[in-house]
């Protein structure tokens, strides 16, 4: 790949990506979330999203020839196979049927002689033979006749890979985090099969967060960060520590030194104490988290995607089923009840702006004032001795205008629908909603996801200011370590659904990087 560039609506996500991969070699691709790994693979695989968002620049060369893939089908014909993070299998079909779907060997029969080949019968014997051959290539044992829905996760993953392997023209196989769902033993088997494939002359691009796997199986490691390739080295010359440092260590020196005045907060009393919290949030399972939050601090929670950092606020605030004990201000907070949390002056800015955070089809006024109105009876006029609680449009307008000015929300008026705002401004509305509740404690989840640099700085500043001036304790969850280091006093890293460690924000990035991958499951 040479000089690959890609931007989404002016937001540069890939800059000058260059790397080469020889036949029969295994290339490990790693980088933090949002480093551009998936985008790069989508370009290589000719996914529709790339074309729809304006294509890419640069060249992809295969065997020395320039290729352009407009659809995944082109990529397939060129011998590229991809196994996605999410399964794309038909649950009710057997492994064999899934492996050979739409490429089944066929036999002619009487009806198809008359009506054409669409009515050919499937040659099940041949299908079994080919499927078994593909499974054997991986060197694992899977019952080819088993229905997908009754398989363990690992076998599903192997079936996906077998499907790609059964394509005879396969030259390059992309595996996007294939081991994320596997147990240690299964992962080991997968790594073996990757070695086997390479021996057969198939090149593999292997994306994973488990760095030791890369060291175990790859010939070459490419580390990406912020849309750049920061390192491209043979595996033999590197170590887990090196890779970690390259992954997270963006301009370690130039990063703004986190704020002063940490000493006085160190002995502040503990305002929230989370013990043995588990949260059943799909994709972000929290297994066993115990965490103390001190009054008046900004605590960062970081970690890789899928490790459970997002599950913590969602669980505490009752949006997903959770268990364990949470004590706030000396009283215990019942879980699974958003109302009780809000009543105790907790507030939450969700990472899912569009689904949870906003009323997209209502005005900004409603968005800002709604929660405060419902929870604290603010912005209401009482009539007939409190019998009727009438919406106070003027108070609502005033408070919204106040936050529009304070947070510099760009909108035509406070009556504009939230849907029409840009991502960054929507995020500010979400913050305004939380501020309007005047909470004592604020969870902010991924406050800068999907917003541009300028808006990012504003949002983070608003949070810091809110923390300092109102003395509100803030817990900020973010995938971006640098952002946490700039904003927070202490940072807890979640890995494998547990707290891997809590460090002051002044610690070097590498130490956080090591924590991030320490308990990955």
């Amino acid at each position, binding site marked *: 790949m040479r000089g690959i560039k890609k931007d989404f609506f002016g937001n540069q996500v890939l800059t000058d990506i260059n790397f080469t991969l020889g036949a029969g070699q295994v290339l490990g691709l790693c980088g933090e979330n949002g480093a551009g790994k998936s985008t790069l693979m989508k370009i290589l695989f000719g996914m529709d999203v790339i074309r729809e968002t304006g294509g890419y620049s640069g060249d992809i060369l295969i065997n020395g020839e320039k290729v352009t893939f407009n659809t995944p089908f082109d990529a397939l014909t060129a011998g590229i196979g991809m196994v996605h993070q999410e399964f794309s299998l038909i649950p009710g079909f057997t492994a064999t049927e899934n492996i050979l779907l739409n490429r089944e060997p066929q036999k002619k029969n009487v009806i198809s002689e008359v009506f054409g080949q669409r009515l050919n019968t499937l040659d099940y014997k041949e299908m079994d033979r080919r499927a078994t051959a593909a499974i054997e290539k991986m060197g694992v044992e899977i019952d080819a006749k088993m229905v997908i829905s009754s398989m363990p996760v690992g076998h599903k993953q192997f079936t996906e890979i077998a499907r790609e392997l059964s394509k005879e023209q396969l030259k390059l196989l992309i595996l996007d985090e294939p081991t994320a769902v596997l147990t240690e033993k299964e992962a080991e088997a997968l790594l073996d099969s990757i070695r086997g494939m390479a021996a057969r002359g198939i090149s593999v691009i292997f994306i994973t967060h488990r760095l030791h796997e890369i060291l175990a199986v790859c010939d070459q490691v490419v580390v990406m960060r912020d849309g750049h390739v920061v390192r491209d080295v043979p595996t033999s010359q590197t170590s887990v520590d090196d890779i970690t440092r390259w992954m997270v260590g963006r301009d370690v020196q130039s990063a703004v030194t986190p704020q002063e005045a940490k000493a006085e907060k160190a002995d502040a009393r503990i305002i929230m104490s989370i013990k043995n919290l588990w949260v059943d949030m799909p994709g972000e399972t929290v297994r066993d988290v115990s965490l103390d939050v001190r009054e008046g601090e900004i605590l960062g929670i970081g970690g890789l995607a899928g490790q459970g950092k997002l599950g913590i606020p969602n669980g505490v605030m009752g*949006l997903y089923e959770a268990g364990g004990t949470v004590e706030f201000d000396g009283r215990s907070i019942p879980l699974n009840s*958003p109302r009780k949390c809000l009543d105790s002056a907790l507030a939450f800015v969700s990472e899912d702006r569009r689904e*949870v955070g*906003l009323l997209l089809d*209502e005005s900004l006024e*409603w968005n800002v004032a709604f929660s405060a109105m*419902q929870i604290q009876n603010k912005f209401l006029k009482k009539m007939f001795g409190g019998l*009727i609680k*009438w*919406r106070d449009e003027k108070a609502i307008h005033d408070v919204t205008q106040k936050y529009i000015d304070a947070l510099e929300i760009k909108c035509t008026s406070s009556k504009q629908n939230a849907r029409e705002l840009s991502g960054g401004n929507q995020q500010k509305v979400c913050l305004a909603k939380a501020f309007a509740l005047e909470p004592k404690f604020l969870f902010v989840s991924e406050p800068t996801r999907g917003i541009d640099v300028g808006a990012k700085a504003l949002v983070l500043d608003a949070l810091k200011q809110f923390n300092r001036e109102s003395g509100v304790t803030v817990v900020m969850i973010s995938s971006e370590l640098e952002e946490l280091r700039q904003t927070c006093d202490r940072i807890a890293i979640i890995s494998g659904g547990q707290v891997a460690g809590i460090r002051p924000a002044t610690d070097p990035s590498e130490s956080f990087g090591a924590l991030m991958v320490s308990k990955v499951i």
Partner: protein
Amino acid sequence: MEQPAYAIGLQYWLKKMGYPRLIIGGFLLVLFIMAPLTGSDLTTQFTNVVNRFSWNAVLVLAMVPMIHSGCGLNFGIPLGVLAGLLGGTLAIEMGFTGPMSFVMAIVVSTPFAILFGGGYGALLNKIKGGEMMVATYVGLSSVSFMCIMWLVIPYKHPSIVMAYTGVGLRNMFALDSFYAGVLADFLKIDLNPLGINLVIPTGSILFFALLAFLMWAFLHTKTGTAMTAVGSNPTFAKASGINVDRIRMLSVILSTWLGAVGVLVYQQGFGFVQLYTAPMNMTMPAVAAVLIGGASVNKASISNVVIGTILFQGLVTMTPTVITALIHTDVSEVIRIIVSNGMVVYALTRKTEGAK
């Protein structure tokens, strides 16, 4: 390419009005213009439209709470209609006559509406996302069930039971000595003595205006605001500490009760009570009317109700006279069915858009 200001203005206006409203409004206008040409009296036509509006408006209003809470269009309105029918027949059975029978009909139907609406709401809370489909069948099956009950409940009042056997209710009976016209005749404007065929049922319209005002006011209270938010984004509402199921239940009960009152208003205007399978015919006109009015599956305002009812009922009353006079064939029923079902299909395909 720059567009001239008036073109942008026109486009904005078109978008705001919504094409279905414009087309039907235009068609209605054409009918009004053509009415005198075909020999029918314009004031008679106007009287018809106004009267039909006064009968149906409350039933259309009954759509609003459920749309606001995100339960979709109330295809289960027959349930409310049945509560109203129970209230009406029981009030007569108890021996009330005149205006008192109307008041008692509403009073008696209220507990039924709460009961039916509660059960219906509990059911809809279990099948979020598929409300409208299930609602349709709740309506159909409850009407069938009540077909049996009309025969089984031991009604005794001679003017409503079957003439010969005295067992079971009649298919249809007149309300002359009961609540026919109790609202319509209040402050009625009747220009017939002056030689102009123009009758305006002021009372019915005022009654609708009162209910519409109460609905508007309710939507401006704390609970009403919560209801709209639940319909707009249930996850947001839940995260703001709202008990989503309870709000939805409340909206279903409100819709059902308005359905009950709506059918009583309809009966007092029409002058007859229709039982057995008649409630089934109440659904489509009400749903279609609110949609023509510019409501969507999750947004509806009082103006949607008013505009929609006028347009839809205008269409239903004008077409028979005008079109029949033109082509000498009675196609009114055909047009009514095409419009009402067509509107429902149209609205369901564009789930999110709505006009204010």
